[in-house]
């Protein structure tokens, strides 16, 4: 068996960074590969965030249909507030590896979020975002863990999620040594994922082999100012040079992995590389809940104190959840990742006209928020949930979702001021990610018009010679393929996807309050909340 399609995820990758790296000679293989293939901007979902975006890559469905909007699921009901961490059971649409498996092919999928607990397929699943202590349980087939454990350099703590190591991702690098440790950690982590995918491609190649390298995102959040030529100082200090060199080492490793994997797959393999979103710089913090408080929508309980700007960990998020006076709050932003506002049940459950009216009033008030220093609007776009999340799960989505002018994430913490400059520019998610393709039938040296992230799944299925289910929302990126090939092997749109198994889908999505676990309550119970 040979690999027909190699799907390589590069979390957070953007041409804004990759192009300069290629020009500097840091990624010579990628430069050569793009020259022999197709590149395009890939528009992400709203908001451009890891869980909803990768779930769209995996399913070919938009968040309103697959049901994932954030790392957490929040519900603001009359009888309480519910928030919990999402997992594979929240994904209510079929994944491409399941579609492939169902049609008699085999698939390998490594390190993709929201794939645990694993839904069995013909092939291999090793999910991402799994705590290292439970990685064995997340593996499919069950003996996969024992196989990868034998690979050189295996270290479950670094391969999977270890909260003691992930602290930087949450709280930020606190000192100079943290930057170096963070970059080295991700070089080691990517090597492990590379070793695993290489091992599986060698021992038991699957027609679809998909792997996600997620360090790019995690690095760019903290080292953006060392990577983006527009941010890097003209007269850098020795330490700044050192950090940039380390960042480049990371990307050299990625380039090496790409070369090895694509070479191992062979010239008959289609390779599709995508990111879930792009990246750019953010230079200000918008304290959304503080703005809601100052404008009469939110009341903190007695004793809620401003937080140190820019810091937000799980403990802080949990504490804030319990520091809201819910009886006197009509709008709240519960997570620092979704840029979403949920209206209270009194608004969302009332007569439709009243709900729309109150939501519109809030929306228009937010549109009038300006930077006192420049007079410019702070928010460039506000989506209602009908605009951003049409689909069967729309009512689980935030009532409003904000796009800030610098694409930054809002802060949900209390603050003395609504808008505060960051000490240093940091990386934030940008809607424009990357699409790169190469291999047989794929045009060479083409920059195609921008694609949508929902186009990835149909395109991958097409490269495998499979039909595209009618209920996928995107299209095959036909502009990436030779005309003659398209005529000889036209796109077939037929059939429908199959929903995940009942336990994995419908049960988790039923509106059972007890099922809607309160992760914050768990954290409090476990001593995480002061």
């Amino acid at each position, binding site marked *: 068996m040979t690999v027909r399609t190699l799907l390589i995820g590069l979390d957070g990758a953007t041409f804004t960074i990759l192009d300069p790296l290629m020009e500097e000679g840091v990624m010579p293989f990628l430069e050569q590969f793009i020259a022999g293939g197709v590149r395009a901007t890939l528009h992400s979902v709203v908001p451009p965030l890891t869980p909803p975006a990768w779930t769209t890559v995996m399913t070919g469905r938009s968040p309103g249909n697959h049901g994932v909007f954030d790392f957490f699921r929040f519900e603001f009901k009359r009888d309480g507030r519910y928030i919990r961490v999402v997992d594979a059971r929240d994904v209510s649409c079929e994944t491409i590896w399941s579609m492939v498996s169902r049609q008699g092919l085999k698939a390998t999928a490594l390190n993709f979020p929201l794939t*645990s607990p694993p839904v069995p397929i013909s092939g291999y699943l090793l999910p991402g975002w*799994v705590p290292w202590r439970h990685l064995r*349980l997340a593996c499919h087939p069950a003996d996969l863990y024992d196989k990868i454990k034998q690979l050189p350099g295996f270290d479950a703590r670094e391969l999977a*999620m270890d909260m003691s190591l992930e602290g930087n991702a949450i709280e930020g690098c606190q000192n100079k040594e943290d930057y170096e440790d963070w970059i080295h950690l991700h070089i080691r982590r990517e090597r492990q994922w590379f070793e695993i995918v290489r091992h599986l491609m060698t021992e038991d190649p699957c027609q679809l082999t998909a792997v996600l390298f997620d360090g790019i995102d995690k690095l760019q959040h903290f080292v953006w100012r060392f990577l983006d030529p527009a941010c890097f100082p003209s007269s850098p200090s020795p330490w700044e040079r050192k950090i940039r060199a380390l960042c480049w080492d990371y990307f050299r490793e990625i380039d090496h992995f790409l070369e090895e994997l694509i070479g191992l797959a062979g010239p008959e393999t289609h390779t599709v590389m995508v990111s879930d979103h792009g990246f750019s710089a953010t230079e200000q913090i918008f304290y959304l809940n503080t703005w809601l408080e100052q404008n009469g929508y939110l009341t903190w309980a007695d004793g809620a104190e401003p937080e140190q700007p820019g810091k937000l960990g799980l403990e802080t998020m949990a504490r804030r959840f319990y520091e809201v006076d819910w009886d006197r709050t009509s709008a709240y932003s519960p997570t620092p990742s979704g840029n979403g506002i949920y209206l209270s049940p009194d608004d969302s459950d009332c007569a439709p006209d009243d709900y729309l009216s109150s939501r519109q009033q809030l929306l228009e008030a937010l549109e009038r928020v300006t930077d006192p220093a420049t007079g410019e609007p702070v928010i460039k776009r506000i989506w209602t949930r009908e605009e951003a999340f049409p689909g069967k799960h729309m009512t689980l989505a935030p009532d409003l979702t904000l796009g800030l002018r610098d694409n930054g994430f809002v802060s949900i913490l209390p603050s003395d001021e609504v808008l505060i400059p960051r000490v240093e520019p940091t990386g934030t998610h940008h809607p424009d990610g990357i699409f790169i393709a190469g291999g047989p039938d794929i045009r060479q040296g083409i920059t195609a018009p921008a694609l949508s992230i929902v186009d990835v799944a149909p395109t991958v299925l097409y490269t495998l010679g499979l039909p595209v289910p009618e209920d996928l929302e995107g299209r095959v990126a036909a502009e990436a393929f030779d005309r003659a090939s398209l005529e000889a092997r036209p796109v077939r749109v037929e059939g429908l996807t199959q929903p995940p198994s009942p336990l994995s889908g419908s049960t988790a999505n039923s509106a059972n309050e007890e099922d809607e676990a309160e992760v914050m309550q768990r954290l409090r119970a476990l001593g995480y909340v002061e």
Partner: protein
Amino acid sequence: MTSVDQESILADVLGLMNRLARDWEYSGEISPETFLFADLGFESIDAVVLSSFIQEHYHRQFPFPQLLAELGQREVKDIRIGELVDFIHGHMNNTDADQPS
């Protein structure tokens, strides 16, 4: 409603924990008296994920938040494996307990 006896659940949970503990280089004996946090080094996210896998194993959902919320009232915010088994058993065999208000 499926009825499962307590000994079977204990065997399931101990088997699961012993299988996982090999990966943690945990050398102590795991018994009903073992604490998840103090003895096995769990973090909160581990409890969240363990509850997911237990639900997948038994093909049903349990009100784990209720259990964890009760922990918050305790002086020692931890849970023994035996208590976890009692909790699962109670909800596997009691329709009322399975549908808390």
